[in-house]
């Protein structure tokens, strides 16, 4: 009888890369759907363009590399990158931002490094920062919520004009809370005063605020993140350390000088904190593999976000912080390996304790 001889083990967990990626996509649906509702047709169009471009660029790169496009594309990783990139863009940004961002994310950040699993930097964040640095005006054109089908919300025809025609109505622009605080500070208005003009904490948490296409609803993102934890796709280490690092920095400095520094809670609820902590910083490929390493990585992200938000020229620092820590990941990995069984953390055999 002819038996196929494989090597063991002869049983396997029911997981796969495809299932993992798909579960992450599922977890993103509530927050994304809410923001589709909040920012209307232009957001849906931009999202479609961005995800579509990522898949197209991935297919092109694979065919250039003479890899089987069909099997690799089916792992959903390009869809996920596109989805996260779209979520980090201003919701009414023009179509070419999505397309260019996709080229940077997939072609440059991912395939130039060797494709899935080989990239050092988070592709979606490379796409976002490349756009932010190159087109700062377009990339900071925030809009107030225009819920679908509400009065004043753009219809599909208006949306096509906004996304593909570049007709961003002047009247709708709004500042993000982080941007507003920063601008006011530069005008000499203390945080304590400007805080009165940012949305209520509850609105911030629910997501009824200006911001990137997918980042506004802390609660829905948290729900998605908890779902991923329940599914054991991610663990608490990175989200908690990112938010912990950011919150502690915010809280401590706020206590020292409330006029200069925004509170820890404000930092947690604004910008891309939740999206970044649960979905961006937790990217497998670009974060450390050990739990200890993930804590170091997350803390680093949290502190850097606070530093950039507080002292640098940009109001939001999530993307930069994650990219900087991505660069450190190989080193963190090297110094945070678990202790081997029967060995000290230096790798020497443990001393024999006499029974």
């Amino acid at each position, binding site marked *: *009888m002819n*038996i*196929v*001889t*494989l*090597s*063991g*083990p*002869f*049983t*396997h*967990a*029911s*997981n*796969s*890369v495809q*299932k*993992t990626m798909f579960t992450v996509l599922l977890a993103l649906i509530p927050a994304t759907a809410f923001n589709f509702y909040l920012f209307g047709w232009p957001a849906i169009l931009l999202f479609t363009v961005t995800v579509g471009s990522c898949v197209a660029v991935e297919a092109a790169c694979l065919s250039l590399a003479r890899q089987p496009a069909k099997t690799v594309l089916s*792992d959903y*990783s390009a869809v996920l990158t596109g989805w996260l990139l779209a979520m980090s863009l201003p919701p009414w940004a023009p179509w070419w931002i999505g397309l260019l961002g996709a080229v940077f994310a997939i072609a440059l950040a991912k395939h130039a490094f060797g*494709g*899935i*699993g*080989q990239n050092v930097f988070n592709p979606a964040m490379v796409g976002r920062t490349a756009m932010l640095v190159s087109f700062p005006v377009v990339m900071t054109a925030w809009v107030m919520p225009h819920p679908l089908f509400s009065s004043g919300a753009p219809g599909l025809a208006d949306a096509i004009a906004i996304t593909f025609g570049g007709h961003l109505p002047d009247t709708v622009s709004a500042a993000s809370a982080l941007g507003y605080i920063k601008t006011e500070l530069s005008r000499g208005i203390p945080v304590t005063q400007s805080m009165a003009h940012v949305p209520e904490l509850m609105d911030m948490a629910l997501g009824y605020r200006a911001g990137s296409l997918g980042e506004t609803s802390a609660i829905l993102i948290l729900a998605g993140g908890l779902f991923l934890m329940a599914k054991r796709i991610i*663990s608490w280490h990175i989200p908690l350390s990112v938010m912990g690092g950011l919150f502690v920095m915010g809280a401590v400095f706020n206590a020292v000088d409330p006029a200069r520094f925004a509170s820890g809670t404000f930092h947690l609820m604004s910008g891309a904190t939740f999206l970044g902590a649960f979905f961006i910083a937790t990217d*497998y*490929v*670009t*974060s*450390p*593999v*050990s*739990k200890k390493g*993930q804590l170091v990585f997350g803390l680093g992200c949290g502190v850097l976000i606070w530093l950039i938000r507080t002292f640098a020229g940009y109001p939001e620092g999530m993307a930069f912080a994650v990219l900087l820590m991505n660069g450190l990941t190989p080193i963190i*990995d090297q110094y945070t*390996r*678990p*202790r*081997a*069984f*029967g*060995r000290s953390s230096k*790798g020497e*055999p*443990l*001393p*024999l*304790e006499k*029974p």
Partner: protein
Amino acid sequence: MKLYPIRGGIHPDYRKDQTSEKAIVALPMPAALYIPLQQHIGAPAEVLVSAGDLVKKGQMIARSQGVISSPQHAPTSGRITAVTQVAAPHPSGLPQSTIILEPDGKDEWADLPEPIADPFAADPHTIHDRVAQSGIVGMGGAAFPSAVKLNLGTQKKLEILLLNGAECEPYLTCDDRVMREFPAEIIDGARIMAHALGTPKVVIGIEQNKPQAIEIMTKAASAFAEIEVVAVPVQYPMGSERHLVQAITGRETPARKLTADLGVVVHNVATARAVHHAVRFGQPLVARVVTVSGGAIREPKNVLTPIGARIADLVEFCGGFAARPESVVNGGPMMGQPLASLEAPVVKGTSGILALTAEEINNHPTSPCIRCGTCVTICPCGLSPVEMAAFIRKDKLDGAAKLGVMDCVSCGSCSWACPSHIPLVHYFNYAKGVLRVLENEQRKSDRVKTLAEVHNLRIEKAAEAKRAALAARNPAPTVPTAEEKASA
């Protein structure tokens, strides 16, 4: 008893219910038995019979050679038809020296050694010798000669004999059934072994997914204050010697040391039962219980099998294949080895024969690593499989060695959990094999170097002695030395 946590581990689909409620049944004697000379770790046994010899059940047909070796005995009475090369139960399917025995159907015992009347009054050496003569090896699968491990008590002070009834491999239920059906024999064997080892205490570790075995063994052990039955958490690889010792004693065996260095000796429950048979009745190890299971087997069973029955005989006894097996595995699905042929025989270390369907194996093509870190989190040895695999893929085995690949126990948890289906443990087994060969070569060349140095030294010494002897015979120097000249 307080238990201690062990690192990592996995919870595979156990699928033990296919056979856990099936009482042990004996395999009808096959038409021929194939008894390999090597069924254990160590040197192969030396054959004592030749074609045409008539042998009785339990008669020694091959004797042990060297310290780490084990004899073989006739599993039944009959005629030796040949001593020849037969496919081994090994993935390679390569032939090895094997005694072929044609049973005569009488199953007559030979004159066995006398039972040891009062083993608890006997000298530990007597028990050790009996276990060695009886061909008993570790029956959990590793097949290390048990007598060698029973001798450890003479070298160091030991505290605990730990009987391993964890049976953490999925599918396997042979230890479970033996514990449920022969608890008194196991307890007696354990007490004898503890006496030989000089351990004051016996702990029997059983995974919590075998509640009946725990209950029955606890009851059987209740008469003996020194024996304690401990239910350990269901966490693969709890049955790994070092991990079981850690779970029960909290002590971590240092790298490159043995659990015996901590005062704990681990034996399998079925081994204890074999010791009971050898000491109380003089019976050598000639049969064992094998779990025959898997989705492709029509009637999964726990089968009492004479050593040397072909795997094909077992499969046939279990109703043959209900579906096409994707793989037939010798042992459990996590650490077992694929079989190249069903013609290979059952040996002393065969705990299970699994005929698995493609669906059960759930094998997929490998995709690139996405660095999810699951392998790092679940590695019970605290290693970093993702990094070691990256080194091995580039054939940088030194790098993998530095990261501790030699500490890997090949439990297979990383391969099981990998979402990219990377055969990680296969990489590590490859690396360990190559590194061991390199180490042996290095040791050999070091030895040759030392021998050469010693040889040169000896020749030099001999030459010097010769010169000295020559000088002694002709005391007068023919040429005056400079000093003599000066003084003259």
